[in-house]
């Protein structure tokens, strides 16, 4: 069985699954329940000067039957005293010495305040620190959280203050509410961070109640923008994780966060460079018990793929994430409808006809639509809308032309080398 033991920037845990800093990691009681259920680590709900929260804090985006496809919150950091949180961290570490407990911190942007906080957290026994430079709501209005994480200079400066005194590994948690996350990644690296956690939640308004016209989550008739998370944000997180992982100026371990709910999600984050995985929304939805399948499924997949440990998975797909300009324009696929599987819903037809390239024909009274192969650009849309797995496949058509990217073409032109424009011209 695959070895799931984890080392993320020097923070060790029996498996890569950590409870992310948030409501499920608010108390020792919860963290110990999480460890009993199988979680490898927990990033404590952010500790700082206690705040007061609003009543009504979460809003959900449901997709038909699926609840909480996206979740947002306007909850702030821990509302419990610093000393109470630290006492509980010590208690958890005493009882679970092999599990990772990471203290998430957010205090006033003053050097001595940060120094004091770091020392206290480490004295309590935290295995590492996570600097919350990402919280997008409430705290940012007070000059903390995303207000730090949105300015590279602040990110670098505060990270360096922490590193002046920290004895344990320091992770910097980044906000996605920026133009290019790698600027912040570089800043954290330059400040001396040992690792990067991302992504924090995305600024959002989840919706409006159409009876009362109040935005959600409603607080006495009003609302505020909140942090968006859950399955809906995973693609954004994957992109940002890969951007940090590929950036040559960063090169420090990544703790992946953002919509992870299953072992498949976990595997994708690992393949794009994550060393550990943080989960919050899925636990808020289903409880700590979900980790059993996450561990089991990940190990089974690794065994089936012949990956002995996490190091052999980490970043394995990164090389395949590239700039658009590097893609081979002489590669061609076309849709093939496998008639024996077709149930005749004609979604592929109308999708192509109205939403794509008019490359599928549907004769009157005929059950199975037909791909007009010479018009098909290979966009995938028909395959994506088809409800039957394997009914529409995208099959490669050899073009007989050598691979050529837009960048290579441009370079060739720049050098005055005559070459054919790659790809095919639309025929419509």
């Amino acid at each position, binding site marked *: 069985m695959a070895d799931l033991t984890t080392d993320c920037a020097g923070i060790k845990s029996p498996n890569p699954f950590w409870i992310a800093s948030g409501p499920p990691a608010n108390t020792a009681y919860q963290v110990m329940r999480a460890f009993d259920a199988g979680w490898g680590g927990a990033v404590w709900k952010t500790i700082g000067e206690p705040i007061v929260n609003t009543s009504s804090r979460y809003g959900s985006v449901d997709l*038909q*039957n699926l609840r909480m496809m996206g979740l947002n919150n306007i909850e702030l950091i821990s509302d419990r005293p610093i000393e109470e949180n630290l006492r509980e961290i010590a208690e958890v570490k005493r009882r679970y010495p092999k599990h990772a407990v990471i203290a998430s911190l957010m205090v006033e942007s003053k050097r001595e305040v940060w120094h004091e906080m770091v020392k206290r957290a480490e004295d309590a026994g935290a295995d590492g620190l996570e600097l919350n430079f990402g919280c997008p709501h409430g705290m940012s209005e007070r000059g903390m959280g995303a207000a730090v994480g949105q300015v590279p200079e602040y990110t670098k400066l505060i990270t360096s203050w922490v590193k002046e005194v920290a004895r344990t590994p320091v992770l910097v948690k980044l906000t996605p509410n920026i133009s290019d996350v790698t600027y912040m990644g570089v800043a954290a690296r330059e400040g001396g961070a040992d690792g990067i956690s991302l992504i924090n939640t995305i600024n959002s308004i989840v919706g409006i109640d159409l009876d009362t016209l109040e935005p959600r989550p409603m607080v006495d008739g009003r609302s505020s923008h909140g942090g968006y998370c859950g399955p809906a944000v995973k693609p954004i997180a994957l992109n940002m994780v890969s951007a940090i992982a590929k950036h040559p100026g960063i090169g420090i371990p990544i703790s992946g966060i953002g919509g992870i709910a299953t072992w498949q999600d976990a595997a994708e984050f690992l393949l794009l460079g994550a060393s550990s995985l943080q989960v919050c929304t899925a636990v808020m939805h289903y409880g700590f018990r979900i980790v059993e399948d996450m561990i089991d499924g990940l190990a089974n997949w690794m065994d089936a793929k012949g990956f002995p440990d996490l190091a052999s998975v980490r970043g394995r797909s990164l090389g395949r994430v590239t700039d658009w300009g590097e893609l081979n324009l002489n590669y061609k696929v076309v849709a093939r409808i496998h008639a024996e599987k077709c*149930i*005749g*819903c*004609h*979604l592929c*037809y*109308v999708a192509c006809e109205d939403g794509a390239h008019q490359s599928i024909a*549907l004769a009157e009274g005929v059950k199975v639509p037909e791909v007009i192969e010479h018009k098909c650009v290979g966009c995938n849309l028909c395959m994506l809308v088809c*409800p*039957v797995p394997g009914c529409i496949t995208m099959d490669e058509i050899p073009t007989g032309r050598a691979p050529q990217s837009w960048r290579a073409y441009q370079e060739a032109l720049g050098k005055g080398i005559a070459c054919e424009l790659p790809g095919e011209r639309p025929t419509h």
Partner: protein
Amino acid sequence: MICPAGNGTVAGDPVKNPAPRLDEATYERNFADINPRLTETAALAEASRCLFCYDAPCIRACPTAIDIPSFIRKIGTGNLRGSARTILEANVLGHSCARVCPVEVLCEGACVLNQEHKRPVAIGALQRVATDHVMDRGIQVLRAGRPNGRRVALIGAGPASLGCAAELARMGYACTLYERREVPGGLNTHGIAAYKMRASDGVREVDLVRSLGVDVRGGVEVGRDVTSAALWDASDAVFIGVGLGVTDSLGLPGEDLPGVVDAITFIDRLKNRPFRDVAVGRNVVVIGAGNTSVDAATQAKRLGAENVLVVYRRGPEDVSAYHYEFELAKTDGVVYVFYAQPARFVGRDGVEALECVRTETVLEGGRRQLKAIAGSEFQIPCDMAITAVGQKRHAGWLEATFPGIALDGGKVRIDAGGRTSVPKLYAGGDCVNGGKEVVNAVADGKAAARAIDADLGHPRG
């Protein structure tokens, strides 16, 4: 069901040895909705299963061509009023069709999910969610058209005429329905098993059609209370939607004994009287194996009959009732006696037994033939016998009322637009097709309405 020429009374009533009356709670339980309404959550879950097919097979399988994917999508978005409009614009009796349509052989049978070996979308149940929403709240989703000065008379107030009148009214025609019975609605108020739909649901639909300005006159028989000449004088076109009559006579000795009842009359009573006032025997024999037979047999059982036997001269593979109806009868404890051909009803002052003769199928000249086995007579003791062997056609009334009308075996001959052989005379529903579903009758009515509009052309001066 609508019977302008029938005699309305049936020999053989009352039952000599009736089953004991049940208490009201038991009646209500026995006749409770066989397919209860989906909860809001269940409806959303079910609606989300619809793939929203393009050019969807379910639409093509619906005789009234309801845009099913659209009405389901609207349920999913919480637009129940719009959903009901989509349904009722295509089928004004969508409320009852949601309950009584044989969806297994129509829309749900065509659902593409069947091909993925998945349960089809519960289209009937979803349709009910939408129509119940507007019917329960009295929300008006259909509107009459601007009066165009044209008038149409419709004979019968069953599904065909209601479907035709609603379509015409929405185009601006003034419609008057003449119904022989006091209570209009036809099959929906008089003929559907009570556990599928109550008479009051049928009446509510008539009210929906009335709300479009349609004049529905109950207790008026054309040919008796009003002449066809008077109809022609007052109308630009006439539509016949008179349905079928009572059950065909078997022509057997003893058929007039008390306790021998026609299924149509029996079911009508169930629908329009308190259950305790409908006599049922302890031991009931039902003759015939179609859908009406199932309705009669299951409801006799639910009224308290101790034993209900269905007697059929052919075998189980020849049963003409829909599969799920046949299964329902068996689930209700109805016992089938196959290969038994009724020969006579036995009894003195009331039916005491049905004498049958055994039959067998033999191959003759390559064809299966049914033959009675000589000397195989046997008797089934019973207190009540219900005949369900097909309904009478109104040939005599049709020929007397509309001289020159072309009939085929008692059924009105029409073209695709419901045109009869008589100019400006249209027909649809059971009197044309010999007995199909409510949805077919509505579709016929719609087709005729469009033909009327095409034929009459521009509004009258």
